[in-house]
């Protein structure tokens, strides 16, 4: 299991953050650029960590498509620029000078890898946090310490990240955020500090009881606003009901 986390962590390590910041050396390939290449390179570099979309480049430079494409290829080959995934416009070609790291707007932030939300990583983090809190009331720092000590992940996690994960668990209604009273369950946490505790669930099924509406067909029905007693969609002809009452 631990190997599995490490692997995912490794993948993250090799993500955007592992790209070395390359400075063009003296006598660098940039000396031997064509005019078109130079214009494009300067434009791309000028956009810093935001990079630029190929279509915008064509518009801003007024260079013919063919030349732009050829020059980009050449700049890529010389490792002066790189292609990055822009989460806003996936599938479109977005370029950036090699020495820059894509900004948060482009990558989607620390939870994104290769332009997609790193769902697997987030879900493992959530599971681990939940596992810890199900045993005892805990603070974010405490959980982070535990993760570091057990070397579960090869990436460096921050308290802020753990807090973000915990907040999402609160939104899932798996845990609650409360201030420690210093007594009982909270005895391990200093009074007044924010800590997390598992939410009380229906002990038999581990799921909170569904509400009155959620446990009948109409409560979760996508067509409720089109349903009328004598209409085409009606409670007497309703398929959801027929299914529900099918003993």
């Amino acid at each position, binding site marked *: 299991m631990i190997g599995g986390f490490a692997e995912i962590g490794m993948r993250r390590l090799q993500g955007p953050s592992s790209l070395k910041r390359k400075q063009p050396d003296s006598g660098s390939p940039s000396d031997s650029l064509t005019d078109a290449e130079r214009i494009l390179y300067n434009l791309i570099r000028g956009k810093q960590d935001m990079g630029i979309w190929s279509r915008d480049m064509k518009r801003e430079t007024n260079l013919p498509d063919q030349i732009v494409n050829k020059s980009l290829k050449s700049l890529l080959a010389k490792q002066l620029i790189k292609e990055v995934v822009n989460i*806003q416009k996936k599938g479109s070609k977005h370029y950036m000078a090699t020495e820059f790291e894509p900004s948060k707007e482009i990558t989607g932030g620390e939870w994104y890898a290769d332009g997609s939300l790193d769902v697997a990583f987030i879900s493992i983090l959530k599971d681990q946090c939940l596992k810890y809190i199900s045993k005892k009331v805990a603070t974010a720092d405490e959980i982070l310490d535990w993760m570091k000590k057990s070397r579960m992940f090869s990436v460096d996690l921050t308290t802020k990240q753990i807090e973000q994960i915990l907040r999402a668990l609160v939104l899932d209604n798996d845990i609650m955020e409360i201030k420690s009273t210093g007594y009982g369950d909270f005895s391990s946490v200093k009074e007044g500090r924010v800590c997390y505790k598992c939410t009380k669930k229906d002990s038999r099924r581990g799921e909170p009881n569904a509400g009155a*509406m959620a446990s009948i067909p109409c409560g979760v029905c996508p067509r409720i606003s089109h349903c009328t007693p004598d209409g085409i969609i009606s409670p007497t002809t309703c398929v959801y009901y027929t299914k529900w009452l099918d003993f």
Partner: protein
Amino acid sequence: MVTQNGIKLAVHLITNHFGNLVAKVCENLLRKGTLTLEHLIRFTELTREQVKNSLLVLIQHNCVQAYSLEVEGGSTYGAKANTQYLAIFDNILHRLRFPKFLATVSENFDNECVELFEGLLRDGRLTITQMVARASQRENPVAEDVVRDSLLKLVTARYVERCPVPEPVISKLDKDETTAKKRAAKSAKINEITETLEQSVLAAAVPMEVIRFSVTTNTGSCVNRDISSNSSPIIGVGEKRKLDAYGLDKEPSAEEKELVLWRANFEEFIRGLRHKACTENVRKRLDDDAAMVLKAILEETRSAEEKVKMESSVPLSLNTIFEAVIKIEVGRTMTFDRVQALLVQLGCPQRSSDASFSIGLNNIIELARNDEVESIVKNRYGQEAYRMFRLLSKSGCLLETDKIANDTFVEKKDTPKILYKLWKDDYLHMEKLAFLGFKQPDFLLWKVNKLELWKHILDEMCHAALNLSIRLAYEKEKDNEVLNIPKEKRVGPVVERFKRIRKVWLLLESALMKLDDALMLFHDF
């Protein structure tokens, strides 16, 4: 807060119980507000006789209240033509929960009381004479004093009350206010106007406390525990009018006493159910002990509550609360400190022990409503929508799409789609921030508007209750032939079908009762 589907549900209930004609009259009153007899005849296109009889049925069952407007100069000329009829939406919906009211009575009283109360629910309003007559015609008849005794018990517990004044007079002032508002408001507002009017009519019709719960029996025993507090010489004009209406300025004759009409006091049942909902919610959220403390407090202060929708419990000192707790059997293990700690858990600020404590009931109700809404969102729109909805609901302010995506770990390109779906179904409020002259896409801001949302949910619940009830009626009709097969002939596949029918009915009926709990949570609590 009467919604379109609420009206449909109410009309459906009335149709089921009293047939189409009565329902037609009732529907007109619900949709158009208050009407006179002439108006009703015109709108329903029924005969005068039919409308009159329908109104009588509705009044008998406490679904309509008549009132008249005070005529200028105090003259009573034309008073009859002036009589207005008002449908009482809440009372119509209460018909759905009669089984719950009856259950409350049978939990707390003997069989005689249950019989008497059942009669009141069935017939709407009864005089003592009628009650006695009914009891004597039963299979195992009971004597008059048993009936009187049962009535006395139920009235003392406030589960039964005297009927309101048949036709209270509403002063010109109230009327001017409402007509002015009516003119100013568009039809969408009609509900709100009816609501304030309804409140003043009902308030004017309800007898003074001292009369409302007083039974003078033949033996002369009298329940009027509030008489001392109410016998102050200063009586408001309205109260004076009520006194006149009851002829209480003179000693009522024995015959007059026998003519007093009695009915179930729905308010007291709803109060009890609200208390129960609060304690059960606390039990779910905290634990049994916290629920017990709340229960003890609510029982102790029950008669001191001035209305059903109390924002918070009536303040009590820690000593009184402790005494109330140890009155309950399981409460005897409690210590003073433990009770105090539980009060803090229940949301009372930590205070010195001689201060008084009051528990925020509206907060508890709000949390219960949130649970219900969130569970709908989760089951209808999925886990990610649930997380987003909870984020917005907790924050209580406008949040931008990207911020929502970040905080809920939802893929950025999926976030607007989910939010849009919730918005389209009226679960979210949305605002656009457009940047003129920029090629940037609009910023979208989202928010949960709780009051609007609750209204919407209530409407959906009424719709769902209507559907459940229609489906139940349909299933019953469909299975009628099977049910008519005599017992001895029920063999083979018929037995199986029979079992299925029972299951279907049970499921539908219990779902309707559970949904009704939720309806009360959003409408009556």
